[in-house]
């Protein structure tokens, strides 16, 4: 029902206005996910096709290499798994995870 971490009605801008730009980064959409993309590091060639296709900018990279997946924002759409040319990403049902 309630989430103590979220702000109360007296603390948020009125009317749902966004008065501070770029706040979507702090908004969790990962909880919408029903299945999670999991990467097989051994199979991954770092071609970054997944990074190109991800609609939520959830493929994390550093110096041209895939470093992880941003589960705080990933909605579990599965496009990365579908597009991966070496099938290094699998969609795993969220019930398999406890976090």
């Amino acid at each position: 029902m309630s989430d103590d971490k979220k702000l109360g009605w007296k603390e948020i801008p009125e009317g749902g206005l966004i008065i501070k730009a770029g706040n979507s980064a702090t908004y969790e959409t990962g909880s919408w996910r029903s299945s999670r993309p999991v990467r097989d590091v051994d199979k991954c060639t770092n071609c970054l096709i997944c990074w190109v296709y991800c609609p939520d900018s959830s493929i994390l990279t550093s110096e041209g290499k895939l470093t992880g997946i941003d589960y705080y924002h990933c909605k579990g759409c599965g496009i990365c798994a579908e597009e991966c040319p070496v099938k290094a990403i699998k969609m795993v049902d969220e019930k398999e995870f406890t976090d």
Partner: protein
Amino acid sequence: MNNKITAITGNEAVAYAIKQINPDVMAAYPITPQTALIQKFSEYVADGLVDTEFVTVESEHSAMSACVGAAAAGGRVMTATAANGLALMFEILYVASSNRLPIIMPMVNRALSGPINIHCDHGDSMAARGSSWIQIYSENVQEAYDNTIQAVRIAEHMQVRLPAMVMYDGFITSHGIECVEFLDDDKVAKFVGEYPPRYPLLDINHPVTYGPLDLYDYYFEHKRQQAEAIKNAQKIVLEVAEEFKQISGREYGLFEEYQLSDAERAIVVLSSTAGTTKQVVDELRVKGEKVGLLKLRLFRPFPYKEIAKALSHLKAIAILDRSDSFGGFGGPLFTEIRSALLDSEKIPQNVNYIYGLGGRDINQTDITSIYTDLEKIVETGKVGERVKYFGVRE
């Protein structure tokens, strides 16, 4: 006060109020019985007597949408409508209030279709009673003029920031000519003051987003804010009324008590029927009957504590609704008042009369018969049918 007295219709008086308010934007579509208001105001625009950007739209849905855009941009914005026009605005009424845009809208009460009808009842504004708009009802032309001016200050108050609709009865008040005391232009201009914008879209140094997706995790909190804001409006209504009295000499409250304090029987009613009822109260008082009237001015927010306090000493109350809430336990006014009275130590006998739908007249003989009904209820202790349809052919 030396303000000028003019014989004028309700619509023209309200158009004059809008001219004096001189809003930044007016977006409106004509509909009977509001048409003469828009027509008169468009003359002021054509004659260059106002600075208002008048947006002629293709529907009321567009009218309210244009108002939302203009208000979010940071302007003082007005429109006006009636009945089916209000119904067509319905979706955007909620967008206006949820975005906390203090749009002002004279709303001329008319029966909703169907069957199609152009005359007065309150079914239109009552349908919007949960839309988080402030609702103020006017008995006559003077009140329609005064309430329009006061609504600006109430809606725009920083503790409120909600839109407001000002009701007056279609044809009875909108087209009836009455003597009205207008305030001087400069007094009204000073009273409404400069529009205080909040988060205007045109302030490009402080960019904001209006109307983003708002799901289960924040929508409820935003609704809770609205509930608080409209509750705040009650005290602001009184503050603004006090200030208005200083410039007009006319007194306004949450409601008007007419011969009520020592009354045993009373009628509760909105708008023009209150005028008819006052006449009857005067006549019956001459005969020594302890009858009174409570005329509600503010319906949203509903001042339930104050109303219960004002009514609890009575023996019997007739609550008159000029609209039905089909399938409900009585009309909208009845359910609110009956519920408000539940916390009183002594609950007066109460009965609901649904009357005047589609403009059916209610006259002094009718009102007298309702006071007679109440007398019988007091004598016998029996209410009979709790919700009555008054003046309908069986």
